[in-house]
């Protein structure tokens, strides 16, 4: 009965069609993360064909990765404006077009453009919206949904690697690119599953009892504005509601730069940017390191398979753990712990001797990697709130872009300079332990400050109209009351969480 509910946004379904959306996100996220790694199989042949050096070919992967992360803000803006579904479908089409045109390339530069830019951009348009929409569909079970969707990455990698090899053996690199283009079109199917949800689909919501709720409901997509109002940027909210917009407001409507004043967001940003310096390098160098200490090629490749399998299991499991009532309110601590655990693994790796030691390392690394990835976006959603998540995720990805690209080359330089892999592992381990500790301490401070603000707020305000901060929402998770506050906050938090997930993996 619409009239009675016109004034309030229904909470996220936390199930039902949401699980189908999780499946779609699984596919989409899987392609976005696994595809750049998967095409490395073709590089040797392409290198011979064009007569280039290995580093010139490796640029293809780097450009693709850089575009996928760097185009984050554009993706966020588009989702803010049009919702997840059209963006993912467009992303799928772009990926398909990119790879099909790559099949007809006659120079390495054309490959950079087709495989690097176009496909990379398409993958960016796949990644962000998938994570964002999970936040729209889930609140109470969001960590599980996030964990399941993120598991798409290792599963796709395990599928793509042998598939790519099979395609290559039978069709050569050109035919494989053509067929991969078609396979990437399946992202459009995933996108079709992303049914829009939330106030965006409900046109009549003018009977809201409270202004704040109203604005929130009416502008689920533009909730960045609403959320920013309690953060002392009232002007934006008012102008948004009035309909008259200045330039800043207009920009903020699409991409919420006010997030840079948000304490939790800044903590997350700094901690994650630091973490990514040491996150991917060990994976890149694990197989070469194994070969370096005398292990044969197939066993070295098997180490990565072990990592992927453990990763696959760890992600949903972490999601379930993070969802439990003991961990969820303190999810930031769990996240910092998993980052530090990851760092500890790397620090201990040089002590691993022989194949068995490396197998043990791969298992623990897979576990730690999965734990971090599963919660990467969940924690951002948790800090920033679902409403601002769309913008937050775009801003975080572009910041992480730099360190993600720098990580492996720095590791490579360390290896070349010292001729020994252990310094790379020590560097990665140290950086991650530092990031984990930083996040732990800062989040401890954040939780306390937020709780204090909460108390002050509750003390002075009786009016449930004002939009509350994320903290209230977080505290209200366990309360299944039909108050406006919890409803507003969960949405906010959900969106934020989506953004986080989009960034990570």
């Amino acid at each position: 009965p619409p009239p009675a509910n016109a004034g309030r946004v229904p909470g996220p379904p936390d199930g039902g069609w949401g699980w189908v959306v999780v499946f779609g996100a699984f596919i989409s996220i899987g392609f976005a993360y696994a595809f750049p790694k998967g095409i490395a199989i073709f590089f040797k042949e392409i290198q011979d064909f064009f007569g280039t050096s290995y580093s010139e070919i490796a640029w293809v992967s780097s450009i693709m990765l850089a575009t996928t992360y760097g185009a984050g803000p554009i993706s966020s803006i588009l989702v803010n404006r049009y919702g997840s579904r059209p963006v993912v479908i467009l992303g799928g089409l772009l990926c398909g077009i990119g790879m099909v045109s790559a099949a007809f390339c006659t120079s390495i530069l054309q490959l950079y453009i087709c495989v690097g830019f176009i496909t990379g951009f398409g993958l960016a348009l796949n990644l962000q919206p998938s994570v964002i929409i999970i936040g729209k569909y889930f609140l109470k079970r969001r960590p599980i949904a996030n964990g399941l969707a993120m598991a798409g990455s290792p599963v796709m990698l395990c599928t793509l690697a042998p598939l790519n090899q099979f395609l290559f053996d039978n069709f050569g690199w050109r035919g494989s690119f053509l067929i991969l283009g078609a396979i990437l079109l399946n992202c459009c199917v995933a996108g079709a599953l992303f049914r829009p949800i939330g106030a965006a689909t409900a046109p009549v919501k003018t009977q809201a009892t409270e202004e704040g709720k109203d604005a929130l409901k009416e502008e689920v997509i533009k909730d960045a504005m609403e959320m920013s109002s309690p953060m002392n940027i009232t002007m934006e909210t008012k102008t948004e509601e009035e309909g008259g917009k200045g330039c800043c407001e207009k920009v903020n409507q699409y991409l919420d730069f006010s997030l840079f004043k948000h304490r939790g967001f800044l903590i997350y940003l700094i901690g994650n940017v630091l973490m990514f310096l040491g996150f991917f390098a060990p994976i890149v160098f694990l197989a070469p390191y194994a070969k370096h200490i005398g292990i044969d090629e197939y066993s070295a490749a098997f180490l990565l398979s072990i990592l992927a399998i453990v990763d696959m299991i760890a992600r949903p499991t972490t999601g379930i753990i993070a969802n439990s009532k003991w961990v969820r309110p303190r999810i930031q601590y769990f996240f910092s712990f998993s980052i530090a655990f990851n760092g500890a693994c790397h620090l201990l790796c040089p002590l691993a001797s022989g194949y068995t030691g490396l197998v043990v390392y791969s298992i623990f690394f897979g576990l730690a990697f999965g734990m971090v990835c599963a919660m990467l976006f969940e924690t951002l959603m948790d800090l920033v709130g679902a409403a601002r998540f769309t913008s937050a995720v775009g801003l975080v990805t572009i910041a992480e872009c730099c360190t993600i690209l720098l990580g492996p080359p720095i590791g490579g330089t360390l290896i070349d300079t010292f001729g020994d892999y252990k310094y790379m592992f020590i560097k990665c381990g140290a950086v991650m332990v530092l990031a984990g500790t930083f996040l732990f301490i800062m989040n401890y401070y954040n939780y306390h400050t937020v709780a204090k603000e909460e108390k002050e707020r509750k003390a002075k305000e009786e009016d449930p109209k004002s939009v509350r901060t994320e903290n209230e929402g977080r505290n209200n998770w366990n309360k299944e009351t039909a108050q406006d506050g919890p409803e507003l906050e969960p949405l906010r938090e959900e969106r934020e969480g989506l953004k986080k997930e989009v960034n990570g993996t």
Partner: protein
Amino acid sequence: GVSGTSVEKNITLDRATRIELSCRLDNKYSHLKSLQVTWKRGNETIRHINKTENSWSIQLRILDNSNLGGYSCTLKGEEETSAMFHLQPKIEGKEKPIVSYEGDTAVMICKSFDYTPIAWTWYMTNGSEQIAVNDSLLADKYVINRLSANVTHLKILKLTKEDDGVYWCEAAFELGKSKGKLKLRVLSLMVPLKPFLAIVAEVVILVTIVFLYEMYSKKKEKLA
């Protein structure tokens, strides 16, 4: 050690050299010292055997191709054992076939391990014959480059179905020649197109189903 089994060893040489081959007995067989040990090349017995405490060795001067081959050391007595020495360098081609398309270019690379050949020649198999690939005669079809001392590079332009087959890259050394094998498969563009269209069709069908289902459930909701 000698114990009734045949041991075969391959030795790779790339240039004229003096080499000593020796057969050694493990200590536990020293009671067999009095037995006869012969070095043979094929059926020909080699006479000048240097005998020490428990090893028998021959000195060879490998000057050219004729000296290469199998040498065996035979221990007669209760057990007959032999060790074979072959001398031949290894060339690497590619085990899996190279797949390319009509009208496209194919690049085939051959590498020599450890030893530098004097010259490289490419051969194409036509039926049972091997024809040398002449890049000066057909310069717009074949391009042969020596990328580095140990690597040779054959580029075939404007591929046609006839180019499909087995290719050999032969490395000439002072002492002989070694070959590497490569297979080239030339496919028509239709071959990958079929799976491509099949997958595109699948995507279109799935997307249509999803949207139809959504419209159907919305209608149901409205009616309900």
